[in-house]
């Protein structure tokens, strides 16, 4: 059974194309990730399936309701957490929550079981104004507010941006738990490392989905030979490797440099090490590595 069906959605703002023919399906109870950098069109897509803006072309149904015609019915069933913190900074944690409960015609008590785990962490700050919370706490409160009416489907637009690593981990654990409660979740993130936590992901670039699959399949589909290299002179390393024979795509990857090679056997690891030593690099570590989602993104984005 499908929760979301999107077919060939297009949206442009003046001359800029925000979405350029996006199609995808999300199954009921699935945790679906939309992965891509800022400006790729993630927020526009969320707003369209959240009934907030109209697409220029294409259709979308969510939980069996058309996002244009049946927006009123649909709005009862959506939980939406926009990218920016969108709660009332001058209201307390408790006031925010009970306001959003009333807006959806419910009470905190009625669906408390759904947010219990998350709200317990907020409980000590019940009387604190939302504007005075830390980034992680704000996100938890926003999630509670989006969940309080027991939505069938939850949209989270970059929920972990600007949140510390510990809170990010906690947040994803919460999402996993919500999934077990049968809620379909669509989440977007610019962090590639969070992609593996989703059931399926779509990699988005400039308004197009480059691929949609499980994270594992996407990684397995990485065809090239991938190497990771590091040395004590990281800054020059990128340029040194990039100009080496047989190196195809070369980019910084966290604290290392990742590169792919042409499949013609022209690349020799020993020759690269010698060359790096010759230009003054020390402490060189070169090894084959498995493609992460980020490597896949880089490779797909080049095509």
């Amino acid at each position: 059974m499908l929760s979301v069906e999107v077919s060939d959605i297009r949206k442009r703002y003046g001359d800029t194309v925000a979405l350029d023919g996006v199609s995808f399906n999300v199954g009921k109870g699935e945790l679906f990730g939309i992965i891509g950098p800022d400006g790729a069109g993630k927020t526009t897509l969320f707003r369209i399936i959240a009934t907030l803006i109209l697409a220029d072309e294409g259709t979308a149904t969510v939980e069996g309701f058309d996002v244009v015609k049946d927006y009123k019915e649909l709005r009862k069933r959506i939980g939406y957490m926009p990218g920016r913190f969108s709660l009332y900074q001058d209201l307390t944690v408790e006031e925010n929550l009970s306001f959003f409960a009333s807006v959806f015609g419910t009470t905190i008590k009625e669906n408390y079981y759904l947010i219990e785990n998350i709200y317990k962490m907020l409980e000590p700050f019940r009387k604190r104004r939302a504007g005075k919370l830390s980034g992680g706490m704000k996100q938890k409160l926003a999630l509670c507010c989006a969940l309080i009416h027991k939505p069938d489907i939850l949209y989270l637009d970059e929920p972990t941006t600007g949140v510390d690593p510990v809170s990010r981990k906690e947040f994803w654990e919460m999402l996993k738990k919500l999934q077990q409660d049968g809620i379909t979740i669509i989440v977007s993130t610019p962090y590639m490392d969070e992609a593996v936590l989703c059931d399926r992901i779509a990699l988005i670039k400039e308004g197009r989905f480059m691929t949609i699959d499980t994270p594992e399949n996407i990684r397995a589909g990485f065809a090239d030979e991938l190497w990771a290299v590091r040395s004590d002179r990281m800054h020059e390393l990128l340029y040194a490797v990039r100009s080496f024979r047989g190196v195809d795509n070369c980019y910084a990857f966290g604290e290392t440099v990742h590169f792919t090679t042409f499949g013609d056997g022209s690349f020799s690891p020993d020759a690269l090490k010698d060359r790096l030593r010759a230009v003054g690099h020390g402490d060189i570590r070169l090894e084959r590595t498995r493609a992460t989602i980020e490597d896949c993104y880089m490779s797909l984005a080049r095509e």
Partner: protein
Amino acid sequence: MRQFGAFIRKEFFHILRDRRTMLIVLVMPVVLIILFGFALSTEVRNVNVAILAPEPDDMTRRIVERIDASEYFTVVRWLDTPTEIHETLRAGEAQLVVAFGQHFSGNLFSPDGSQMQLVVDASDANMARSYISYAGGIIADFSREMAAGTGTSAQEGISSSVQFLYNPQMKSAYHFVPGIMGLIMMLICAMMTSISIVREKEMGTMEVLLVSPVRPIYIVVSKMVPYFVISCINLITILLLSVFVLGVPVAGSLLSLCLVSLLYIVTNLSLGLLISTMANMQVIALMISGLVLMVPTMILSGMIFPIESIPRVLQFVSYILPPTWYIAAVRKLMIQGLPWIFAWKETVILLAMTIVLIATSLKQLKHRLE
């Protein structure tokens, strides 16, 4: 209904927790009333007068005494030569000089009559005109009494008698209280409501509210309720201040004054609603209400300057400003004490404006982001 209640509660929290807004909203009317009441007064009171009498005698002394005795003028100096007139005015020692002609008393009963000159510092033209008419009035009174007392017909001529109805003391408070009422209500209702709606758009909370079953009309109407309450408080404050501090009584029926005021409040709330549908940023909303509403209201609504003395083209602007009609209605109902029926035109125009504003903004109100 419970949703609506939650919205209104939330709005009150916003206002009550924002000290600065609270201060502006509740203290501004008081400050404006007091400012206009005492600092920007156009009343004539205790104006310094200098006298030039080449041949002081009983007659001139009686006139001078008459001038000095009035509450409008205080005689501060007697001058000896005409050259001193300019010096005194320039030094600011006096704003008005009363100069008697040669042989003043002697010529009084001659066919040509006697001469008298009023020299006024007209750097403030409006005030200068008032001084002249006040001093002229005193002198005219005196000469009329003289003529009657001596039984001569020498100073007959045409004498006009001016009577100031409804505001016999020419108190400026009578003039500006209706104006301030019109201005304040507009600022509070139109500006505050529009800013508060636009703030939700700017903060991103509108996005969350729209993705909820709440109808957008409830969102905006709930914004109006607190400002409606605040405006009513302001109305009471202004009326109390004007009656007890400025001494401007409510001459007509309090009920009809309040009803017209409530109508005007609703007009402005719908104006604020319309602004909020057009603006996406608080700055824009502030600019629209500040530049497009406040400035024209102060200049063109008849609050300070009479509409009749405004150029024709601008008069047209006056007529589409709601405060113009409200101020006119308040003048009739509060100052002149006329029954409501005399303000029917203003009421109907305000009502029509309200209906047009509400209809337009409802049409503009979107249930989506763009």
